[in-house]
């Protein structure tokens, strides 16, 4: 019997990670895609925190590209899909606020985590409907060019190649629900433009310098109508 039917989902969505297309370049940005009152639109990050920035075809095969490793980190290439991986490092919550430091380097730590964020931007139809990696991943089950404002669409969340259930899903600034047994959830295009979908999972921090590692994956695509 399920006793817990009241789902109070508490998620820590710090800043968002996304990729903008500017001319022939893909630009990796960090901050708030749709900043609220008092929120910064963009937060400068250390380019050395970007662990990867890659270009793929529609079947997930890596394509040659060129990375410009200065802020903001950019990628040049003809890509159907681009994916970047960034770690903002250790974060520790304290009575004085949030510190970008591991737990042992702050006084009175309350909660700490190591943040690893991945963003995937898809440009056209991605043929693979199954996960492309063994990591945390969101797969779009529709052709993004077929979507229009007001329409529902489905994504599936995987981790370790398996559907991830009961994970809260974030879409353009709000959590819209949790995945079902098949890892799927239905979302809706609320407004044209960028669709930023995120999921996070917590796992044990291998280095023991934080309470947990927080892995976040963002899927990004644009809807033009």
């Amino acid at each position: 019997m399920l006793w817990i039917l009241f789902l109070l989902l508490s998620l820590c969505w710090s800043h968002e990670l996304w990729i903008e297309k500017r001319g022939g370049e893909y630009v990796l940005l960090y901050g708030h895609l749709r900043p609220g009152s008092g929120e910064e639109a963009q937060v400068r990050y250390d380019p050395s925190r970007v662990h990867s920035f890659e270009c793929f075809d529609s079947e997930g095969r890596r394509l040659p590209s060129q990375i410009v490793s200065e802020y903001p980190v950019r990628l040049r290439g003809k890509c159907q899909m681009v994916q970047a991986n960034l770690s903002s490092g250790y974060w520790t919550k304290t009575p004085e606020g949030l510190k970008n430091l591991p737990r042992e380097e702050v006084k009175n730590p309350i909660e700490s985590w190591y943040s690893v964020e991945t963003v995937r931007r898809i440009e056209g139809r991605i043929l693979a409907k199954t996960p492309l990696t063994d990591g945390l991943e969101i797969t779009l089950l529709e052709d993004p060019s077929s979507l229009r404002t007001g329409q529902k669409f489905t994504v599936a969340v995987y981790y370790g190649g398996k559907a991830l259930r009961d994970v809260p899903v974030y879409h353009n600034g709000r959590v819209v629900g949790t995945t079902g047994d098949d890892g799927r959830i239905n979302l809706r295009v609320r407004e044209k433009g960028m669709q930023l979908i995120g999921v996070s999972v917590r796992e044990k921090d291998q280095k023991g310098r934080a309470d947990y590692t927080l892995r976040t994956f963002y899927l990004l695509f644009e809807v033009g109508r």
Partner: protein
Amino acid sequence: MKRVFIALLSFAGFSLAHHGVASLGAVGLEGPGAPLESSSSATLPEGSWLLYTKLDSVRWRKYSFSDFPDQKDRSDFWMLGIGYGLRSWLSLYVFAPYNVKKELRDGGERSFTSRGFADPSIMAVLGFKYDGGLRLIPRRESLEDMMDWHFTLYGGVSLPTGDANRKGYMGEFAPDMASGFGKPTITAGFTATKQMVNLPELTFVFDASYLKFFEHRYNTGDRYRFGDEFRANTALVYRVFRSQEKSLRLDLLTELNYLHLQKDRENGISVEDSGGDVVYGVFGGRLYYRRASLGAGVKLPLWKDLNQQSQQQGAEGKEKYRLIITLSLIF
């Protein structure tokens, strides 16, 4: 760091007609709103329990005691209920009504009050939705899924355990003051609910139901059958406030409730001063905090066409007002 909270839970509220009809409503902090009297199309989450209570407190309009020596004064219809989500698309409920009915007698010089538990009822609600086709309510829905058209079919039957033979003030035959109907009553209904995609604060609800009574032979030898009831309700619920951090939500709501009452029949003969048509308006609100929902409103007869309007003091349509308060808790 921005913290995002959300509660995807459902709360349910129930409607109580004068004879004890239960219906459904549901809401989350961001989900569709729930009315007070109409039934919404929400089902309980699978495996969840619901505790519920509702008061429908009626003040009857009174007239000259020279014309009406005996008049209904007030009625308090309490409803206690428990629900369980057997499946995401099937909810089961048990309701126990407790009624207090007060009359003023002998020109208002005396009063008579009948109180007690009335016939309990069991109900089942089957939920389905339109999402590219009709389908049963899935175990998990996103907030976007909740904005699809949702429907329910519901039905129930009461168990005649109340005291149908309770006598009136002077020991007279008074079926309307009894706490039971003597026979099971059957309810069947349909609901449709839509949370607007472009204005998610607004929820539209439609609800239609039929309540069937059967003739009962009382200890006095009299046979009496209450008139069947048909309802068609619409509601608009508007979310005016929501705080995810505080798990708090406030909705304002308005409803139009149409009620058609057939004439009662006593010993096979229609009771002329019974039955008719009434349209009620409901104005109220609903406050949600964590797992609890508190609803309150006033229900007023806006229009009526009673069969013998001048003789039906104490009947539907002759209220000054009805005060409705509900409290529900899901766990």
